[in-house]
């Protein structure tokens, strides 16, 4: 018989307000095996933990039940405390009487009754607990960073700096991400390329960093410390070891009318291209969808002009198998499609552009060489209207996003300011619902746009943009403070489109078994206390893949994710989860059902000799679980008809004891 101690936490008033904690501890005192029962204000506090430790020693407890918050919150805390007092940490069970009891029930009697039942279930389980010892598994000392934008670059540099190998996988032909497309950055107005491209070069030159550009993650297997990843290196049809990035092929290619994605389709590129001058790696890529040679076998001009002999039309996708100890997700974002917001006439007029397109139109390396010109006729625009919150902060109706995209207020202030600075003859209107500028020097920046640059900030929304036959855009809007409807003849309208996670993230999350929220942003392990870790061990989050952020925030999070990954890689061994499956060889039939459902290949079979009761020997095929590989899902335990396969910590008898305790009441 176990000697069980019960500890009921008040959690201040969080539990005590709807659960009579004294009644719970008093009632549970009478349960079989319970030799000590108490309640305390904050069990997780140091004095609370001391109560636990003292009781374990004083009452020679062999099992502990804590009635408190969710085990997802403090199970580890209490296990550690128990271990400190000499009790096996896996002899601790938590009854969740906060999230799943006190917080959801208003009636104290009902709450108390339920808390008692949950306590009894935990006690019933502890009776069947056995001390478990965690095994250890080695750590592969290499990290994978998925996404080569500023987030991925910063994470990779920090990890490499700490002395660990790190691979960057980027689906585009170059690293750099969205930031390469930006002109200036708020609130300091330094040029994006000037601060980003040196970092890209650092990545290329750092011997600890390998860049897999134009590549995608194909498959992820394994677990924290031991991920096995397949990377698909897409065929560029260019031998990257030979290509010097001279760009001659990109000048000679006869296919000239391919929409240039780097400039968001505002101009064209060739079928063989280098996205931009500072690309890393600076090598050409042949776009197989448009290359004449690859489509019809007729051309071959680029191969002829390439003095390095780098063109290889026969190149195939390559699959690279790599092992990693940690994975950092940095998949970034994209602006939403605006086809569902055509009251702003985005698809009806070339002069209605997104803010990211506007960045290209003002960028010295952009299609207009940095001179702001109307895309429709190349004339200088005089009246510009910026519309905020296009698709952000919308009711969840499939049209837009319910969240604030966070970066638009600041980049719009930047755009407005830059336009007014460079072209003082312009009138610039910004229609806003709220101006949100929390950040260092952010509000000052916005105020400068208003006060020094004379940008017209108008509280209200644009209702309709009507492209007139003469090329003017009739903007119909509301000035809420003046209580009037405005009709502005504009030359350009710039829409601050909401941002959304990159669409590749959804599939990636499935491969990583990392959870996502309803907006497809990766979920963090704890919204406040573990913001850069995924709940899935060994997966870390960097940048906008976790939620909208600007560059400073992204870089901070990238470094934080790197620090977490470094902390993991610095360990030689990881403590395994001891709640793993094991097979009772005497009962095992060797039928292979368990092996077939194991997602980790943790089960193998061997022929084993048994001494039977009648002293004869028999050779039988039996299953054996590798505890370092098993992750403890329990799929095998249900596939096993004989019950030979069971799961430590969640055994058949333990779960049934819980079922019994819950069901047999009254």
């Amino acid at each position, binding site marked *: 018989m176990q000697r069980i101690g019960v500890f009921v936490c008040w959690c201040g008033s969080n539990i005590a307000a709807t659960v009579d904690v004294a009644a719970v501890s008093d009632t549970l005192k009478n349960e079989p095996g319970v030799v000590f029962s108490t309640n305390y204000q904050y069990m997780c506090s140091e004095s609370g933990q001391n109560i636990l430790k003292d009781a374990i020693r004083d009452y020679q407890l062999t099992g502990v039940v804590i009635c408190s918050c969710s085990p997802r919150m403090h199970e580890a805390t209490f296990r550690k405390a128990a271990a400190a007092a000499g009790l096996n940490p896996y002899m601790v069970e938590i009854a969740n009487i906060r999230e799943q009891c006190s917080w959801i029930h208003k009636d104290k009697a009902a709450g108390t009754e339920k808390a008692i039942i949950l306590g009894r279930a935990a006690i019933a389980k502890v009776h069947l607990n056995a001390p478990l010892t965690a095994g250890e598994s080695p750590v592969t000392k290499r990290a994978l960073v998925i996404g080569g934008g500023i987030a991925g670059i910063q994470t990779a540099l920090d990890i490499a700096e700490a002395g660990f190998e790190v691979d960057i996988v980027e689906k585009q032909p170059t690293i750099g991400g969205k930031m390469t497309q930006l002109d200036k950055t708020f609130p300091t107005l330094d040029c994006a390329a000037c601060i980003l491209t040196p970092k890209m070069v650092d990545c290329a030159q750092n011997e600890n960093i390998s860049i897999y550009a134009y590549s995608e993650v194909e498959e992820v297997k394994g677990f924290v410390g031991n991920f096995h990843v397949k990377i698909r290196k897409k065929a560029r049809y260019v031998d990257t070891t030979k290509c010097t990035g001279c760009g001659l092929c990109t000048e000679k290619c006869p296919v000239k009318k391919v929409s240039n994605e780097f400039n968001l389709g505002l101009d064209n590129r060739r079928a063989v291209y280098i996205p931009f001058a500072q690309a890393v790696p600076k090598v050409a890529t042949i776009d197989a969808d448009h290359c004449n040679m690859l489509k019809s076998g007729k051309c071959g001009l680029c191969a002829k002009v390439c003095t390095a002999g780098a063109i290889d039309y026969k190149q195939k996708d390559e699959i690279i198998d790599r092992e990693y100890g940690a994975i950092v997700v940095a998949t970034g974002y994209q602006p939403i499609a605006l*086809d569902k917001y*055509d*009251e702003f*006439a985005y698809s*009806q007029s070339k002069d209605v552009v997104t803010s990211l397109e506007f960045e290209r139109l003002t960028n010295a390396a952009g299609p207009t060489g940095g001179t702001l010109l109307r895309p429709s006729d190349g004339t200088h625009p005089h009246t510009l209207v910026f519309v905020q919150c296009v698709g952000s902060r919308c009711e969840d109706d499939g049209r837009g996003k319910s969240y604030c995209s966070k970066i638009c207020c600041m980049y719009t202030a930047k755009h407005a300011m830059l336009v007014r600075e460079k072209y003082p003859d312009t009138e610039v209107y910004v229609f806003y619902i709220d101006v949100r500028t929390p950040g260092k020097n952010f509000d000052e920046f916005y105020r400068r746009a208003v006060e020094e640059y004379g940008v017209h900030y108008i509280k209200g929304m644009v209702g309709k943009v*009507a492209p007139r*036959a003469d090329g003017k855009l009739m903007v119909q809007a509301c000035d809420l403070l003046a209580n009037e409807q405005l009709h502005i003849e504009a030359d350009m309208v710039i829409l601050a489109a909401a941002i959304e996670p990159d669409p590749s993230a959804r599939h990636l999350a499935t491969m990583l078994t990392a959870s996502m929220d309803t907006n497809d942003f990766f979920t963090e392990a704890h919204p406040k206390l573990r913001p850069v870790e995924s709940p899935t061990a060994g997966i870390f989050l960097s940048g906008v893949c976790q939620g909208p952020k600007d560059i400073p925030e992204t870089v901070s999070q990238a470094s934080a994710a790197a620090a977490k990954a470094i902390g993991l890689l610095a360990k030689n061994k990881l403590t395994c989860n001891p709640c793993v499956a094991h097979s009772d060889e005497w009962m095992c039939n060797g039928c292979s059902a368990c092996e077939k459902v194991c997602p980790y290949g943790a089960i193998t079979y061997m022929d084993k000799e048994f001494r039977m009761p009648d002293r004869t020997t028999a050779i039988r095929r039996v299953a054996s679980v590798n505890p370092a590989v098993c992750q403890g899902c329990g799929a095998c335990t249900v596939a096993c008809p004989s019950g030979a396969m069971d799961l430590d910590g969640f055994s058949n008898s333990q779960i049934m004891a819980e079922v019994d305790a819950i069901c047999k009441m009254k």
Partner: protein
Amino acid sequence: MIYSYYPGCTLKNKAQELDRCARLSAQALGITLEELPEWQCCGGAYSMATDEIASKLACVRALKDARTRGHDLVTLCSACHNVIKQTNHAMAEDADFALRANNYMAPEAEYHGETKVIHYLEMLRDTVGFDKLAQKVTHPLTGKRIAAYYGCLLLRPGKVMQMDDPENPRILEDFIRALGASPVLYPYRNECCGGYATLEDKALAQKKSDTVMTSAREAEADCIITACPLCQYNLMKNTPEAGRLPVIYFTELLAQALGVDEEAKRA
């Protein structure tokens, strides 16, 4: 292909051309429109009030009748279409409204929005197909610059009407192309002409109609087509005569292109 057909009051009176040309064209396209025998006025405007039940029952009866007959219901007048479609949507989605409406009517056969309601244009697009329609055109309107006027009721609320993108529709433009003419895009084609206010506030109706008319004229259209008798009236009566483009029903254009209108006149 057989459809039940709900013409509506105006098509029996002031907008007979809209109806007549639609019937002739449907016949030429191999489509049978069976007019519901006992339809009543839809009410002209959909009441958004949740407690307006009785005023929607005429629509529910028509919808129920169409269900009994087993054919999808085709409408033509934009207003009727809007009212019937919104009523049908409410019967399907708003359980409380459906309960109360059903209680008013013969409760032995409850109605829950089973009938599919489509506009004549949707029938042309989805059943006939604009490519097939183009093949049947005998008198192509080549060279004509035609401005499609959608107004409000065909498109909005988009979630209910689901005919086309409410902000950038193309069904009428595709229709115009199928007839061999050139569609003219102009920004006010889906803005209100002020028609409902024509009795209450003539000046308002005139102002709104003029915006639409001016916008179409500036886009250098030869004429405007519409599916709505009230829009047609409003654009013709409440705009200054100078610079007014002819406003005709889209079915008139259709009958013309199919060559059926001439035949009718000869016969």
